[in-house]
């Protein structure tokens, strides 16, 4: 009797697993599970942790207490943080726009360089990545500080008389940020530009377009995917940047990234830091989504 029941249940189990195996949906889920597991461990899980933390409260000694608390979010509506957030947005946008403006000609030049030189030039663009990022930013201190490399050069060329006092200013932060993110704009732009067939520009010229018109009507629209990729790669990380403002901005320039870092490392208020992270993420996401929609991301990718 018992054995019969057992065999029945085994049979049922077996048939269930078989139906699972034959179901295209479960089959598909099974096949993509390595990717899913990866995404879960490295993206979903940390996100859940941060989101959960943001609703807890800080204990007296900086520990996390399991007590529901919404004030982490309400505190962020303090005009002080609002200002920092807006300023960060401005710096992020500024960095992105300057990177695009500076990076476009560079990418264009790269894409049109003779094939032999191209790989060398690309190598040179990637060369800075061989050195630690923080060391490179420290190098900018030497360049930008009063009486530093830049000042000496400008004075030697008689362009300026007095030191510019660039270091520890928002300008220094922008310079550092543009420097850091420029390759992230140049490389996708280069890929986009390099893909544009020369025959398209010949066709434009053949149809009566002088070079600048051919650029505006053909090259520029066809490089939009590269511009979008470059923008996303620059804007998102620059919003959370804290190393550059720390080193080149002194105490004067504080971005939202610095606020978050300070909450975790200095103030030991993890819940508040988490809440700030969540808000930053939300803002970035809204911004990016809006931007890609506007730029016709989906359609351009089809090309």
């Amino acid at each position, binding site marked *: 009797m018992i054995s019969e029941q057992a065999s029945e249940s085994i049979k049922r189990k077996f048939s269930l697993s078989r139906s699972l195996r034959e179901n295209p949906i479960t089959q598909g889920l099974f096949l993509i599970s390595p990717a899913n597991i990866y995404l879960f461990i490295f993206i979903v899980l940390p996100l859940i942790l941060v989101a959960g933390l943001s609703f807890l409260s800080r204990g007296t000694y900086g520990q996390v207490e399991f007590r529901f608390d919404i004030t982490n979010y309400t505190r962020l509506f303090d005009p002080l943080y609002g200002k920092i957030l807006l300023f960060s947005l401005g710096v992020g946008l500024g960095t992105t726009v300057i990177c695009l403006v500076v990076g476009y000609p560079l990418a264009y030049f790269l894409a049109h360089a003779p094939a032999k030189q191209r790989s060398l030039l690309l190598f040179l663009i990637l060369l800075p990545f061989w050195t630690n990022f923080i060391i490179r930013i420290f190098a900018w201190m030497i360049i930008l500080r009063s009486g530093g490399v830049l000042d000496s050069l400008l004075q030697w060329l008689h362009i300026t008389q007095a030191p510019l006092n660039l270091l520890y200013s928002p300008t220094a932060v922008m310079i550092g940020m543009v420097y850091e993110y420029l390759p992230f704009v140049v490389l996708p732009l280069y890929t986009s530009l390099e893909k544009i*067939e020369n*025959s*398209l520009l*010949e*066709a*434009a*010229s*053949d*149809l*009566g*377009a*002088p070079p600048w*018109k051919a650029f505006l*009507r*053909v090259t520029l*629209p*066809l490089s939009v995917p590269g511009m979008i990729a470059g923008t996303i790669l620059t804007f998102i990380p620059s919003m959370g940047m804290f190393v550059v403002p720390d080193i080149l901005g002194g105490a004067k320039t504080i971005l939202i990234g610095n606020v978050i870092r300070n909450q975790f490392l200095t103030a030991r208020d993890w819940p508040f830091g988490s809440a700030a992270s969540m808000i930053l993420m939300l803002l970035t996401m809204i911004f990016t989504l809006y931007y890609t929609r506007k730029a016709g991301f989906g359609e*351009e990718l*089809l*090309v």
Partner: protein
Amino acid sequence: MKSEFAVEFHDIVKIFPTPEGGQVNAVDHVSININHGEFFSLLGPSGCGKTTSLRLMAGFEWPTNGDVVIDGEKMGRKPPYLRPVNTVFQSYALFQHMTVFQNVAFGLEMEKVPKEEINRRVNEALEMVKLPGMGKRKPKQLSGGQQQRIALARALVKRPEVLLLDEPLGALDLKLRKEMQLELKALQEQVGITFIYVTHDQEEALTMSNRIAVMNRGKALQIGSSVEIYERPNCRFVADFIGETNFLSGTVKAIEKDRVRVEVTSPRQEITGIGIGNLSVGQAVAISIRPEKVHLVDDDGSEAMDQNKKENQLKGRVTATAYIGSDTRVVLELGTGVRMKVWEQNAISTLDPEAYYSVGDAVRIIVPFENTLVMPEDIG
């Protein structure tokens, strides 16, 4: 007042550097005059300079030496956007980020044609290439043949003096290509624009063109009508490239009015034919005999008899045959390794195997003098 010619090439030379540091004459002292309203083809194997010649007309390249004259005006180093010509590219080069309408309208917008006129002309052009109502689509959504037509409409809508076509049908399948050949020809007659057509397909060139320039290694070897270049090729290369032919090599023995007597090396015998170009006694020449312009008779072993002195006779043995319906293709061995292709028309309907040649048959090949062409081995 129209100029005498639509396009003139005055002794054009175009030199490109090679990757190895050398130089190559892509176009080598070419002079061509192309008439208004003509369908003119540049025909040759790849690397012969035909596409470079076209690009010199379009303005994508500038000649190293010589003048390109379009509609009586010296082009010099004029850029493409200032020339009264338009190009249909081999790859179509359609703007994928624009709709079909925007693609066709592009050239008119550059001319600052008023909006209403653009609308009207673009729609007319789309109708002309039989794609009305396709304006809102993107090029990627169309088939290869349709994209081809858009490229054509985009160039024709500008009403250029000359339309340049760079192997425009190369990417289409055979059936579509045949269809488009007829359509293109009809279109050209309808609009009356000079078409300059680059192709490596000799059949395409023969069917469509008023005149053809056969090119090889940067030189225009022969310029003439389809009939002229097929029936009177001026050198071995042209005879070989256009259609099929058999060659015998020899030296000129005597020249009598329009007849040339040649001492052939293998098989060792004398052959008489029509001389093409300036030949002189003792010159090395090629004899071209087209496979459809001979006929075979059974060899009864007797000596060659040619009382009326009108035809050459060669002896051979059948080594292979292929029945292809309209004719039987026979391969003959003339002795000492020289082979000859002959196409015997199957003029009589019969099942009798005796009526067809089979391997091993000894035959006599009859070639009338006027079908035997004696030409220089090489010119230019």
